């Protein structure tokens, strides 16, 4: 048994860490967040030039053939920098869906570009009524003129305002919450009939709701078999969950480092506040939460690219549940340990705290995954 990264994985993680340290100061991040894209186009270019956007793709696509652990190494470092680039949305999730369900020609059209960073993908699976259930799809795709006509609304599409391709789920048959009858489409972002309501997110990124009004696409926009997308979505969402857990660990690491630093530096009543036992114990609890989260992120990474099974489902649900709870604990207790300064825009801690809470709102919160895990409980 050995939990250490191998030499290649360690090099990969060091590469991302160096890049983030060099290019992603807190002040720069605030500037990137204010741009139209909501992230740094230059940093994205650097990621791709170093081959990092190609990490999870196969070698014939110019990729690295990386699995869960490689993705984890990248995501943790991006988390440490609170990086805003659409690595999760484009490389992991969008690329994953197209790679999983797409035909050879669809992969050729999209994946090379996604792997090289020239193209960005976004993922539009949620809807206003879906909460976190990705099988809850009311958007309709009807056969028309040899292709499909899409109508409906997709909710909170992170990066959807500037992605080149958007992977959209729509119902070709069945009722709103059936797992059967869901299909996936790769929509070019400039397809007629796509209307966007763009907004900043509270954690510094950008996204949009997509209103699909009679969006006509050709038959070759369909990814995979008609009506059979639920399994693909579930599997790829699992990969994205593992990646998100890794990001969260990076965010928590920095949040804890900042808090510990503050406890040592800040003096009240003539001593560093870290001398007070109530704060010592709280910091220990934050540390323990991080270790719980780290363990689950490692476990999630180890099953991310395994064949689907109830065991994989359980691990991913458990990991996201733990990450949600640990993240909220560290966010809230970190703010409390800092006092007022932990709530200011000018100090980076608050931005880590916000990201941790918002990670709980991506791909299912701790309640959602607790329910999912409970539904998969094994008999004793």
């Amino acid at each position, binding site marked *: 048994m050995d939990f250490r990264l191998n030499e290649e994985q360690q090099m990969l993680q060091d590469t991302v860490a160096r890049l983030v340290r060099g290019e992603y100061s807190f002040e720069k991040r605030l500037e990137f967040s204010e741009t139209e894209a909501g992230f740094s186009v230059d940093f994205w270019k650097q990621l791709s030039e170093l081959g990092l956007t190609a990490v999870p793709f196969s070698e014939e696509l110019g990729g690295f053939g990386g699995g869960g652990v490689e993705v984890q190494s990248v995501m943790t470092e991006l988390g440490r920098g609170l990086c805003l680039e659409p690595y999760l949305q484009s490389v992991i999730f969008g690329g994953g869906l197209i790679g999983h369900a797409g035909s050879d020609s669809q992969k050729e059209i999209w994946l090379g570009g996604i792997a090289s960073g020239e193209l960005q993908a976004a993922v539009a699976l*949620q809807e*206003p*009524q879906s*909460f*976190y*259930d990705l099988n*809850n799809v009311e958007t309709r795709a009807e056969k028309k003129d040899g292709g499909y006509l899409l109508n409906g609304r997709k*909710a*909170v599409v*992170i990066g959807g305002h500037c992605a080149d391709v958007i992977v959209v789920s729509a119902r070709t048959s069945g009722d*709103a*919450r059936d797992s059967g009858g869901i299909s996936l489409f790769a929509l070019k972002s400039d397809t007629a009939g796509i209307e966007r*309501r763009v*907004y*900043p*997110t*509270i*954690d510094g990124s950008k*996204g949009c*709701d997509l209103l699909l009004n009679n969006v006509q696409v050709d038959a070759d926009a369909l990814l995979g078999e008609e009506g059979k997308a639920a399994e693909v979505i579930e599997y790829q969402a699992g990969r994205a969950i593992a990646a998100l857990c890794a990001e969260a660990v990076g965010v928590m690491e920095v949040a804890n480092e900042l808090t510990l630093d503050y406890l040592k530096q800040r*003096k*009240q*009543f003539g001593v560093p506040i870290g001398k*007070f036992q*109530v*704060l010592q114990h709280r910091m220990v609890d934050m540390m323990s939460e991080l270790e719980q989260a780290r363990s689950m992120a490692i476990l999630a990474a180890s099953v991310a690219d395994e064949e689907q099974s109830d065991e994989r489902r359980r691990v991913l649900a458990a990991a996201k549940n733990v990450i949600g709870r640990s993240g*909220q604990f560290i966010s*809230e207790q970190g*703010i*409390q340990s800092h*006092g*007022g300064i*932990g*709530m*200011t*825009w*000018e100090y980076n801690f*608050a*931005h880590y*705290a*916000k990201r941790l*809470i*918002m990670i709980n*709102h*991506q791909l299912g*919160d701790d*309640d959602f995954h*607790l*329910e999912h895990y409970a539904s998969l409980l094994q008999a004793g």
Partner: protein
Amino acid sequence: MNMNYTTEELAFRDEVRAFLDEKLPADIAAKVKGFRHLSKEDHQRWQKILSAQGWYASHWPEEYGGVEWTPVQKHIWDEESCRYGVPRSVPFGVNMVAPVIIKFGNEEQKQKYLPRILSGEDWWCQGYSEPGAGSDLASLKTRAVREGDHYIVNGQKTWTTLGQYANMIFCLVRTNTEVKAQAGISFLLIDMNTPGISVRPIITLDGEHEVNEVFFEDVKVPVENLVGEEDKGWTYAKFLLTYERTGLAGIGLSKAALSHLKALASRRIKNGRPLIEDTTFSQRIAKVEIDLMAAGISNLRIIASVEGGGMPGAESSMLKVKGTEIRQSINDLARRAIGPYAIPFVEEELNHDYDGEFLSDENAAPLSAQYFNNRKLSIFGGSNEIQKNIVSKMILGL
């Protein structure tokens, strides 16, 4: 044991309800209940209505324009006004500096400042915390040196809520460095327009400008602006903090927030059914509602003892901790109730005059921001850790 209101108290409650039914503008109440921003005009419009009723300075003695409500009457007002969506009065003048001036100020100060608080002419802010003096307030360093008939003030205050609108600030300043920290502090009233004062905004994590830093550079303050005696300010400050703390449990606000949460959860959908029918979520709501029920009774027990002539003691510290935890839990649930829509931050929907289409729910936009903003509840007014220190010292003798 009698947990019921008296006939007179019930009559008072009816009077409050009748007043709010008739006089509270519906547009203002809707904004308060939806956690949207109020315009300055909204605040002024409401203060005028409240003043006309004679209820703005309800706890002041009658001779200064108050009505001297009993603790139970104050409680009734608090409950009803939260339930109806009455805008919160900015407390620094009417609820904070005024009681200090009334109790410790001289006649001239009473005649000068109290009417201007009543009329809304003066907007007060609080100069207590400093960058190096938060929980350890007595270590404050802002210095006031007597020179003739003035004090010369140098230093810095922070977390000054709504200081950007204020024309007056009440400050704790150090007038004596030779004695124990608490013994060298004085309570000064300072005109914000005095040369040498500058205000710098502090933007909070939700993007709001609510708090400020206030800098003092050779600021000349007339000695008649000293409240009470020199070096006795700590006593007045503690008196004020007790006043502040009794309101900080926010039971009425939590009740209003809970009712808002339940309405929201009835509109939101999970698995094709209203979220409020979902087992997991309804149990979360139930738990916080039960906690609030208990805290509500604890609050009444404190009020009843004060009504009987007692002083709110360390019990109010316990209630501050519980009450703020409950309100933060309600904010947590409201954010959870909107699921993925907690992520977008559609600031324009917070505007008092927003008339566009809402991204998701009409009340969704403020929920994440409010959750983050209300992390302050367990920090300000004496952090919850400090409150627990008070309880362990005063009640437990530890």
